[in-house]
């Protein structure tokens, strides 16, 4: 316990002599002789006391006055209780500003406000010579204030912290905080977050290196870095019994073989003590389409598939809104996604002698209008206009394209980065192919067990390519992504295969391969449904955020710098260059809001007593006010005494 400004106390404390002098030399009331005392006594009937009681009251009044003066002087001199800050030189304040910190309000305050308040309370007890660094993090850490001795700047920096609807990743932030703290030791990192010890441990490997010390304040724990003399103190602000339901996963994909229809995969998580009824409102372009009633188990998750019709003329905005009574975090209750307009996938098929079965398969796929197949000889390569997927049928270009997905059928030799050797004498007939990855999208609906093919090339497996069909001579169907380019290799000849060409599996295989390979291009061209916090490359000068009806939001225009932007809001967006997309939280970590551990109850008790730590000025001022009220009540509620 000490004064931040002891000189102020020395200046103001002597004022205590004033009530003492006033008490000693208090004016005696004039004596008036009266013949009507009973009437005066009737006025003062409620306060007829004896001389010793009156003396006691005078003494009590003097005591209260002294306490008022001393309390006010101590408040002006900033009396603080700071048990552990004496030996520090640097304190790094690391505040979690991820989405879950908006949970609440509990007692009218969000977790972030609680964290800032807790930090400010501890800061008040910090010696004036301790430098303070203020950091905040969500997916990425940010240094808001470099090392400063000016507490007003620190408070301003703390006050500037706002919750961002972005998933929190404390590991990198703690690591950065460690590095900053290590610049001037001994140092302490005050990590204010709602994450539990378990979550922090899983997120912060570096925190487990040291020895754990005793807790100070509320739910706090110390982790000491012995090499750098940096102590990490976790200031927990978790809610005791959070109740939250949120959407933690969302994916929009085309329904196979159903033109113009998408399928939204939605995953909902629940944190509660009892089953929670919820309503999921599904809206397209702001118009409610279908509400769904859900009953979520505590700690459980629910997965849904929602069909969505696309439009031919424009993108549509799909909005999902969860409604749950008592939900503490609204940020994870809403998801916006752009449903791309109907546009055929453009496929360029290069072949010296077109395989009739492949032609049949591609033409059957193009009947629905989902595919637009352009067929040409090798001389047509490279194409004048950009296409979504290129199919090299028994041919490979001398210069391998790297900016377009490629499907290589019956490769004549190496296919760019994929090494392949041709098998002579018409190939090798194979039956009973092995499919180690049956769930791969390329094999969706394909009856692998009934297929018999003639392998025409041996392809080197390994690396980023995944073997989907494996024969005795090695893999003959591979798919993977090499330096951002999706490649599917079919090392067999459909024309010479016995069972494959006339089966439905072949068009399915070709179609799956085309859609899988073109997924990135389709998404980037027709809408990017991303998570908040992601950095996306954008064209144009401005990023414009929109509402669920696709209208530009007020104050929603952000200037693009460096051709990229961080998606820091929830909702659909567009650029003035024609790009569009959406951003949603979709974070299991932030939706599963941790509850304050049961064993932290003792810490809670300490936290309840924490007003006696840190800056006692507000407490003292309230105490002075209470003393004044008590004195008024004791001595001035009646006219007589």
């Amino acid at each position: 316990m000490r004064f931040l400004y002891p000189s102020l106390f020395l200046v103001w404390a002597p004022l205590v002599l004033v009530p003492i002098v006033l008490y000693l030399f208090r004016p005696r009331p004039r004596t008036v002789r009266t013949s009507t005392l009973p009437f005066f006594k009737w006025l003062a009937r409620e306060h007829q006391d004896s001389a010793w009681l009156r003396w006691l009251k005078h003494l009590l009044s003097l005591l209260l006055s002294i306490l008022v003066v001393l309390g006010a002087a101590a408040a002006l001199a900033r009396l603080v209780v700071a048990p552990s800050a004496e030996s520090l030189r640097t304190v790094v304040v690391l505040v979690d500003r991820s989405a879950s910190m908006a949970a609440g309000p509990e007692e009218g305050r969000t977790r972030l406000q609680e964290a800032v308040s807790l930090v400010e309370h501890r800061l008040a007890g910090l010696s004036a010579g301790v430098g303070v660094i203020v950091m905040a993090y969500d997916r990425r850490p940010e240094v808001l204030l470099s090392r400063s001795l000016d507490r007003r700047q620190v408070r301003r920096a703390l006050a500037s912290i706002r919750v961002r609807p972005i998933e929190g990743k404390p590991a990198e932030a703690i690591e950065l905080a460690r590095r900053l703290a290590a610049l001037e030791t001994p140092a302490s990192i005050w990590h204010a977050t709602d994450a539990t010890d378990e979550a922090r441990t899983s997120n912060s490997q570096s925190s487990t290196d040291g020895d754990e010390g005793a807790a100070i304040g509320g739910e706090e724990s110390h982790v000491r870095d012995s090499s750098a003399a940096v102590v990490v103190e976790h200031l927990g602000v978790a809610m005791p019994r959070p109740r939250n339901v949120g959407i933690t996963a969302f994916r929009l994909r085309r329904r196979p073989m159903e033109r113009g229809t998408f399928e939204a995969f939605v995953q909902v998580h629940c944190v509660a003590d009892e089953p929670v009824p919820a309503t999921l409102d599904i809206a397209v372009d702001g118009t409610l389409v279908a509400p769904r009633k859900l009953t979520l188990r505590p700690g459980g998750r629910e997965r849904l598939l929602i069909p969505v019709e696309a439009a031919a003329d424009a993108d549509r905005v799909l909005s999902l809104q969860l409604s749950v009574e008592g939900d503490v975090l609204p940020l994870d209750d809403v998801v916006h996604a752009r449903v791309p307009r109907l546009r055929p996938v453009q496929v360029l098929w290069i072949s010296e002698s077109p395989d009739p079965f492949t032609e049949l398969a591609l033409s059957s796929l193009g009947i629905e209008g989902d595919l637009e197949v352009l067929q040409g000889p090798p001389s047509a390569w490279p194409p004048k206009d950009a296409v979504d997927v290129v199919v090299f049928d028994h041919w490979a270009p001398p210069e391998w394209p790297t900016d377009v997905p490629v499907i290589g059928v019956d490769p004549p030799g190496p296919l760019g980065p994929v090494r392949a050797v041709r098998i002579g004498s018409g190939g090798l007939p194979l039956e009973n192919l092995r499919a180690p990855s049956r769930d791969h999208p390329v094999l969706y609906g394909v009856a692998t067990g009934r297929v018999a093919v003639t392998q025409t090339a041996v392809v080197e497996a390994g690396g980023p390519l995944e073997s989907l069909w494996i024969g005795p001579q090695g893999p003959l169907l591979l798919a993977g992504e090499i330096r951002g380019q999706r490649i599917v290799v079919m090392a067999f000849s459909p024309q010479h295969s016995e069972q494959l060409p006339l089966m439905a599996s072949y068009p399915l295989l070709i179609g799956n391969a085309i859609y899988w390979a073109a997924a990135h291009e389709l998404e980037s061209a027709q809408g990017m449904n991303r998570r908040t916090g992601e950095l996306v490359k954008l064209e144009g000068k401005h990023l414009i955020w929109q509402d669920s009806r696709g209208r530009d939001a007020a104050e929603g225009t952000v200037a693009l710098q460096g051709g990229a932007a961080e998606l820091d809001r929830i909702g659909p967006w567009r650029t003035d260059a024609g790009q569009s997309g959406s951003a949603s939280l979709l974070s299991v970590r932030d939706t599963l809001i941790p509850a304050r551990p049961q064993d932290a109850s003792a810490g809670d008790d300490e936290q309840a007593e924490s007003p006696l730590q840190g800056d006692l000025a507000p407490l003292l001022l309230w105490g002075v006010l209470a003393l004044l009220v008590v004195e008024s009540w004791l001595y001035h509620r009646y006219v007589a005494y």
Partner: protein
Amino acid sequence: MGNSHNQTEELFDAKFLGRLRSLFFKLRKRRQLQRRGQHSTPAAGFTREFKDHRSYTPGDDFRTIDWRLFARLEKPFIRIFEEVQEFHVHILIDRSGSMVDPYPQKRTMALRVTVALAYLALLSQHRVSILSLADELRRETQPMKGQGHVHFLLKQMAELEFGGTTDLIGSLRQFRPGRDRRGMVFLISDLFGRSPETSTEALLQATGWPAETHVIHVLHPREKEPDLQGEIRLLDVETAEIRRIWMTKRELARYAKAFQQFMDDLHRFCMRRQIDYFPWTTDQLFEDTFLDLLSRGSALAGTG
């Protein structure tokens, strides 16, 4: 003796006595105008004095015919008598400390009223007894009759000492007016007992007196509306009890209201029991107030 003479001069100077005489003549003139004549009610203790004769007219009481005159003049005349009533006037004066301290004007006023009433009664040939009350009842004079006692009366009143506590209930309980004559009782007091409630309890004794009772409530204006502000240490003049009080305008208003309530209660109490209640503050003009007192139906005003 010299001191007593000075006090007598101070209280009842020649001017005051002159005012009393003129007051008496005023009353007699008023009485002549309001004379009731021969139809006064005969009663024990009455004296009937012959006044005149008048011719008999049919219907007159034939018992009043003067037969001796009829024998001489052979004409019937009836005798006219004047009825003279004699009262025993009891004057009870409060001599407690509150009657002199802190406002000695109350003492002066009470003594002057006492003397005036006694003077009027003596001049009207009534018997006069003066008693004083404080913590007990005390007889100050034996029953007096005739103008010759005026100077004795003045001397006694000048020597009357004020002080001590008030025991209204006990004092009035001790007072027992005789039933041999019609009586009149004048109680001159500020009626301040140990509490405002004791005043009405004390006056309850007056309902048993066989006499016409008048209560003259002597007050000082500052007792009704004190001029006190701020923190004050109040000292009771009778009991020496001390109380501290912080007086504000609001409290002054409450005090005035409470005091007025006290007077209203007394007035209501007296009116119900056919007791004349007459508040008299020391700032009122003596003659006018005294005439008002007598004009309130007092038998004293109708005799002499």
